[in-house]
């Protein structure tokens, strides 16, 4: 039997099918416009469109925009064109497509990134609703369902907190500003003469350099990368930290944020949503396993070997929000932080327990981490975080 999908006789033709395919891709998280549909149709005239493999390659070049899309594409193509589609409800071919929850994460991270195949899909039809619900128009969703307990983080965080946190994040960002850029840029007040610009301007005065233009070293901001532990023992502090992360993302466009419990999830893109509460909602979808156990060492290790390779450099400050209670051996944390350190970044560990009187970092994980840290501080409230500003200036 042919593996090619047979379309109904009333189907109006190739253009409509292509539009249908684009809609199918959009439903599965690829961001495509009308222009792409047009480009896709044009592209098919340059390859042998009767050959599924060629069509697949051509459409892949047009419709994908990053590595995640590219990895997801083959399954989506099969489900629409190759008779694996036309499914009435939810089930799709076996593969691990990234969830819709992180559809906007356009990073080119390694395939090892732990959140691939993470959260289930909010728009996938519910299982067990019975045949009555299935009218044959069910969406083709190429993701696997994962039934994990999910928590709506919006219950935890108030908009006022985010506004306050945003202000704090901005101030911290300023405090971390590094004033040593090696390149100089033109400026009215600077320490050196900008020869090229001076000569350029002198043309207006017949070659006499009347107005001298200076150069100076511009401010170079440090980039904040925040990793927040959201395991069970951290739940009470999650409110503060998540507000801080949300504020940070809104106040500082270079910042990067991650959550971890038993695995690591990048939440940067989700948090950049213009609507703060919607951002938190999107994040909730990714935060499956919130309040569960914590594998700090493994999460940090994943981070050091995947995202950090791309997003962390000598100008980054990595902030880790965690109490250090780890279920895996402390050697993991030690090794992960050592790897991370090699990237030249500063590491700050904010431990809510440190605010307690007589607290000693005796938890094995915390003790293993200490030698690698530039700062080890307490931060139980937004006010504590704000107070860190002075300390960070000296980093």
């Amino acid at each position: 039997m042919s593996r090619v999908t047979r379309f109904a006789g009333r189907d109006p033709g190739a253009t409509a099918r292509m539009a249908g395919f684009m809609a199918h891709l959009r439903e599965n998280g690829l961001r495509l416009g009308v222009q792409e549909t047009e480009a896709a149709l044009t592209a098919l005239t340059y390859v042998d469109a009767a050959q599924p493999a060629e069509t697949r390659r051509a459409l892949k070049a047009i419709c994908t925009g990053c590595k995640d899309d590219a990895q997801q594409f083959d399954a989506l193509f099969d489900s629409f064109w190759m008779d694996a589609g036309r499914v009435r409800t939810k089930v799709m071919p076996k593969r691990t497509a990234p969830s819709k929850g992180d559809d906007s994460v356009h990073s080119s991270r390694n395939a090892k990134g732990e959140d691939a195949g993470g959260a289930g899909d909010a728009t996938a039809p519910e299982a067990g609703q019975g045949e009555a619900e299935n009218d044959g128009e069910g969406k083709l969703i190429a993701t696997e369902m994962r039934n994990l307990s999910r928590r709506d983080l919006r219950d935890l965080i108030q908009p006022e907190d985010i506004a306050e946190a945003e202000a704090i994040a901005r101030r911290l960002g300023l405090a971390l500003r590094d004033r040593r850029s090696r390149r100089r840029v033109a400026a009215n007040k600077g320490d050196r003469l900008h020869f090229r610009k001076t000569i350029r301007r002198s043309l207006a005065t017949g070659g006499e350099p009347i107005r001298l233009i200076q150069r100076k070293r511009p401010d170079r901001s440090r980039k904040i990368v925040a990793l927040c532990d959201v395991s069970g023992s951290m739940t009470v502090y999650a409110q503060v930290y998540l507000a801080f992360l949300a504020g940070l993302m809104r106040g500082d466009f270079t910042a990067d944020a991650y959550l971890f419990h038993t695995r690591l999830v990048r939440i940067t893109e989700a948090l950049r949503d213009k609507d703060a509460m919607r951002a938190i909602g999107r994040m909730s979808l990714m935060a499956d396993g919130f309040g569960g156990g914590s594998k700090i060492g493994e999460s940090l290790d994943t981070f050091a070997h995947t995202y950090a390779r791309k997003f962390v450099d000598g100008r980054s400050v990595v902030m880790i929000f965690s109490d250090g209670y780890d279920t895996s051996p402390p050697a993991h944390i030690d090794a992960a932080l050592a790897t991370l350190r090699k990237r030249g970044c500063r590491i700050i560990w904010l431990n809510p327990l440190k605010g307690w009187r007589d607290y000693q970092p005796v938890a094995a994980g915390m003790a293993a981490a200490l030698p690698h840290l530039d700062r080890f501080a307490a931060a139980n409230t937004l006010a504590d975080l704000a107070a860190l500003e002075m300390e960070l200036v000296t980093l």
Partner: protein
Amino acid sequence: MTSWTDLQSALAAENYVASDDLAVSLHLALSLQRPLLLEGAAGVGKTEVARVLAAAQNTKLIRLQCYEGLDAAQAIYEWNYQRQLLAIRASSEAGETGKQVEDRIFSREYLLERPLLAAITQAQAPVLLIDEIDRADEEFEAFLLEILADYQITVPELGTITATTVPTVILTSNGTRDLSDALRRRCLFAYVDYPDRETELAILQARCAGIETRLAEKIIGFVQTLRKEDLEKVPGIAETLDFAAALMGLGIADLTADPAALQATLTTLLKTQSDRAHITTEVAQRIAGKAA
């Protein structure tokens, strides 16, 4: 109209083994005259694609290497201030009027072409390689959008310079930062991964003429297994070629015969101190044993 397989064989004639996915993407980029964004780890041959494509099409390769702080003056055009200045000095002695001088010093003669302007003013469409676009600032990326969409550049003093030919644009990115959606949407996309065993073997045989098949297979087996180890810097194709050249130069035909010699040649594959420490002689022998 040629097909993508023709392009693939044209690239093969230049000793570049392109995967089917990549060949179709390149073919579409040429046919649709759209820029092509290549993404992938360092050392998988992204930059090489552009060089080989230019050679296969017998046209010029214009390369723009991006870096942090790259600005329009360095990428598009700049006035030749020194020459303009001299012209002003000389003209004041010759007694030219201000208008005449102005017309002269703001002509194409005094314009220094940088890669982007050069790319659109060629008689024969060149290949424009914008290398490591993720290193450039976001402002520059936005700036590029305009040029890639219209293929025209406006010089305030001269007016708009429209492309005489539309260059084949290839952008590469290592993913050190997220590129904007706007840029991604204007480009076709291909992800270039480390090649599989057969492809890499084909590359090795194309580049190292006269290598024994048995040795080539062992080398590829070794490198492919090595890539699965926990390394800081995973070796790319260029490293594989260096490794093969080193083995051939030392006359080593069997990877397991002389552990010390193999260890010495690993300098071509391992580029950090910790990777070297990680791949000890025993580990290297284990990998070589598996590869054989």
